[in-house]
């Protein structure tokens, strides 16, 4: 077994440090070492997207990365989406209003993927939303509420900018 290594990165605005085996997955480090259990694990092979985070601003699957690869990075997880005063992010608010979640297990990954989508394309069409979110699987909603929510959040975010 390789020697443990130090890793340090900024997550949801705060610098966190730890020591980890080089083989440890980033998602396990985030959940088990940092206690941020909002990021979920659904397949561990990069298909379901439940573990999606923002890694240096871009959507990434934290089950396909090692914790040591995150050294020096800036990460946002679902816990970092709402404002410090607790005000929900427009996407979170829209998900609530459009019944875009049922069990809520895919929701963190879906929200982070939607963040990235709206960063790249602030005015997506319905078709573009469906394509943009096709890397996160949901088995409860049939996706319609999610698509509606992302559209509504995009409108709200554009009008408030």
């Amino acid at each position, binding site marked *: 077994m390789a020697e443990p290594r130090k890793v340090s990165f900024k997550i949801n605005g705060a610098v966190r440090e730890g020591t980890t085996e080089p083989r440890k997955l980033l998602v396990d480090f985030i959940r088990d070492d940092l206690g941020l259990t909002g990021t979920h694990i659904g397949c561990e092979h990069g298909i379901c997207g439940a573990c999606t985070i923002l890694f240096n601003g871009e959507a990434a699957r934290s089950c396909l990365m090692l914790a040591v690869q995150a050294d020096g990075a800036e990460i946002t997880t679902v816990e970092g989406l709402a404002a410090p005063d607790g005000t929900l992010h427009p996407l979170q608010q829209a*998900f609530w209003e459009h019944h875009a979640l049922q069990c809520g*297990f895919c929701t963190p990954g879906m929200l982070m993927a939607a963040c990235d989508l709206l960063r790249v394309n602030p005015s997506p069409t319905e078709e573009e939303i469906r394509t943009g979110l096709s890397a996160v699987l949901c088995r409860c909603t049939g996706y319609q509420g999610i698509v509606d929510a992302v559209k509504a959040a995009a409108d709200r975010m554009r009008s408030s900018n």
Partner: protein
Amino acid sequence: MAATQKWVGQPLKRTEDPRLLVGDGVFIADQLFPNLHHAAILRSPHAHARIRSIDASAALRLPGVVGIVTGQDAAKMTRPFAVGVRAPVKYYCMAVDKVRFVGEPVAVVVATNRYLAEDALDLIQVDYEPLSAVVDPERALAADAPLLHEEVGSNLACHRHIVYGDPDAAFADAEVVISERFVFPKYGSTPIETYGVVASFDRTSDVLTIHANFMGPFILHPITARALNLPENKLRLVVPPDIGGSFGIKTGIFPYMSLVGLAAMKTGVTVKWIEDRREHLLASSSGTDRIAYRELAARRDGTILAMRTRWYDNVGGYIRTPEPGCSFRPIGNWFGAYRFQHLEADANVVMTNKSLTGPNRGYACGHLYFEIERMVDLLAEKIGMDPAEVRRRNFIQPGEFPYRTPSGGLYDSGDYPAAFEKALELADYAGLRRSQEQARADGRLFGVGLAVAVDPSVSNMGYITVALDPEIRGRPGYLPKSGALEAATVKVDPLGRIIGVLGSAPQGQGHRTVVAQIIADELGIAPDDITIVDEMDTFTRVWGISSGTYSSRFGSVGTSAAALAARRLRDKLVRFASYLMEVPPESVVWSEGGAHHANNGQVLTLKDLAGRAHWDVESIPPGMEAGLEATAVFAFPEAKAPDLQDRVNSSNTYGFIAEVMAVEIDPDTAAIKILKYVTVHDAGEIINPAIVEGQIYGGALHGLGGALYEELAYDEQGQALAGSFMDYLVPTAHEAVKIDIAHVVSPSPFTTLGAKGLGESSSMTVPAVLANAVTDALKPLGVHIRELPITPSRLWHLMESARSKR
């Protein structure tokens, strides 16, 4: 005293959501426990093999490993699970002498972390003697087929031949007879959260506590306890605050509750096991694959007279409770939405070297309606009648409810023609047929499909005993099985706030929101003043063997219990208030959260009454029990045991679904494009329309996945071919369709609020409506869909072979 409905019927935003949206949900993998260790499971690479020996010594020496469990421990410390059939199948929580499917647990390592536990798996040496395997349920019944269970003597786990009415006479009288063979695939709803179990054994009290994302039925609690040689009151089963989807699939977790419980009992530490996706696809649960032969007898005017059916349900390596529900769950609605009176059913439940099965959204109804609705379309084609007209001529009529089916189902309410016509109208059926005419003239492949279904909810636990021959059920001393119940408690705190306690185990259905709506109306308060607790715990909740969140139960039985409990509490509050006001109870009216004197305007609010009851117990009238709380156990009166003619009301409320789908098929690539999809539901009174719509969307996509993409495929040697989401294709947002939804409301006379279940909804109709639409589109080529999933390659080959014959 009827409550005013201010909240019931509203699309209230869910109280569950904010926690889940900010990452504060508490799923099984998120929960913290002291002295926690982690399990990894070694699984069989063989479909069928004898285990000669297991050498775990090297694994045990690995630092961090605290214990290993093998089949020898299971044989010593546990018993086989009870099964619902007479065949003496020995199903333990892990392989004991043989493995019977790829992925079957062979050894469990318990270590200080999961990485180490998985390392240790590589060090375990298992000496297997491979045996030949069989995966086809018909082939498995051949005399020379490999035998899975020597003590059973054949691979047939259960066989029942059941006749209602006089099908032979009906077939003899028929002007038209149609026969067809259907193949329904093995698929599962693959919740994004996999199975998870945490077990710890308290050696001072001998209590084994199991936390698991289990959703019922709670009959599986006593079955698990017995397998672990524990008295039922020494097995505490706790469900976490959040479950990440199930759709029936998490019923299949109970063998792992037993396995991880065994590991905790053997090692003395708290053991956590979180299934990975590969394990889930290899060895969790799915619906059965089924081969079915169906015959239909009819008159030329489209009247269906009778059906005959023989099927082979493939339950995999062991029959696991609640199977053979795959064959019998819909027994009361085996006749679908139609009035015919004669049916012969030959049910064969077969064990093969595939993974095990159980409830999967729509449990057995996807199979049933795929067969029935395809047959109705075949009849329409044969007699040259519009398929809509054939259905119209056979519907049970609105005046006939409650309607007793020949197989014992008691359809509580409905207006099938109204719902069906609404679907046709919403889809502009006549317009679609005109478009089709034009499309065909242009050489395009455009099809319109129809399907209807009676949507059963709240299983009567008694149905499963139809698996036993009536001769056995008729013996003196036989203890019949029946029932469907749910409990709820509503209590008032000292300041007049309400807490509702449920025994349900929701997986995203929004029970907290829905029950708050119901209690708010019953007590005339706001949902925000109500806290709802689910988090089922067998030590503290009121429950029965039928408890749980499955078979679309909550909308019928859970809501009934919650409303009844709230009414009981309200009655007590009124009696208490009348005593304090010194007037008879009839002079007190409950409204707006308080007791109102009918004449003098005096009001005692909920807060007033709560304060008196909690702080001044002396103020409670003589003869009234102290304490402001009420528990209701709601049980359906018509959930009776099967009779000796195999008639049983297998569910307790029966909704209705009518669907229209239009598709166009690419003549070159065989790609199917869904142009229109309309679904009309009758689920009685609707409590939260947003949640209902979400269930319909979700159910429809499960049906679509099973019909088009998903299959737990195996090769002839029993090797699993879909071990990852690369091979098992789950529909994404891109494949999902937009749905036109409408409702018809026929309140159930059997539930407190008139509501029916709707959780399984269109999962049971989409395979049928899609197969009918695709067949209709391919009419110019003469292609019939008899087998699912309709993958592009399968469809392309069907089209090519039809073209080459022309």
